């Protein structure tokens, strides 16, 4: 499937506001708000499961992405 849009929608349902950028089977989650916090292991596991179902083998979270409110280092 590898659909970033569908993945974004499913992650939004988990409370995560991110843009999903697909690089083949690797998807980079780019936060669109400051509140993205994946330190919680349970939430991380849920994100990985959703991404796997969407066809991605690797999921990463961009840190201090440009344009994300106060996230500039």
């Amino acid at each position, binding site marked *: 499937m590898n659909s970033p849009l569908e993945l974004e929608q499913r992650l939004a349902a988990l409370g995560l506001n991110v843009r999903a950028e697909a690089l083949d089977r690797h998807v980079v989650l780019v936060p669109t708000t400051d509140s993205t916090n994946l*330190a919680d292991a349970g939430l991380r596991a849920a994100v*990985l499961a959703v991404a796997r179902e969407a066809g991605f*083998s*690797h999921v990463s979270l961009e840190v*201090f992405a440009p344009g994300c409110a106060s996230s500039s*280092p």
Partner: protein
Amino acid sequence: MLNATAQTPRHSSSAELITLGRAGEALRDKETQLVAWLRKAGSVLIGFSGGVDSAYLSAVALETLGADHVLAVIGRSASYPAEQWTRARDVAAHLGLPVLELDTAELADPRYASNPVNRCYFCKSELWSRLAPVAKERGLRVVCDGTNADDVHDYRPGAAAAREWEIASPLAEHALTKDEIRTLSRLRDLPTWDIPSSPCLSSRLPYGTAVTPERLAQVEHAERALRVLGVRGDLRVRHHGALARVELPAAELADWLSPERSRQLHRAVSEAGFQRVAIDLRGFRSGSLNVLGGVAP
């Protein structure tokens, strides 16, 4: 030569092996068979990285055969961080192991530098083509590597080069797994027993991304900076062009995903020349790029 006389092999600490019960007996048996294999070999040249496997093999070989019949050769390649050579020298000195250092030039081979899925084949071909003549010149009968029983199940195109050069893999041959080698190393008080695995820096580049000194330097710089920041376990900075994907030990992930720590991580990795930095949410995965490259499940 620090120790020209073979000692009676003492095996890994007998008392501790007894406390391990049947598992300890099995380990003792494997080590006994390894010692017997080394005795039969008579003299060995060992491709030496100073890592868990080659250090253990070297320690047993040195104890069994004596320093006149063992030579550890460090292949110095631009695809390994400088710290690794330093560690290899330190481990060899700790063991009293005779060492030779040779430069290898796989980066000059376009078949390697183009980073195909069998890149490791060209690296190992280069390495063994340098080491095999040394063994012949010095009258060392067998050239060995530190391949273990787990490695045999991985995607390892370098194994084909080892077969072509008739390189022995006595640890794998005696079914010694990485965990078992760590246990046996700990019982021998080897300083390498708990060090993380450290494959070459080229393993951080997706297949098809050319291996260049600049990209390797970026990875080396970023990983070194993260070590300085406090990453302790297995760590890989995967090079996806402008983006660095950082694989951290699973146990450390929550800490590094906190705002303050991720800020530090971002700064450290950015200074290595990456425009974007991302933390892999699964954490360290051995052979991660083999999965992305479609050569491993």
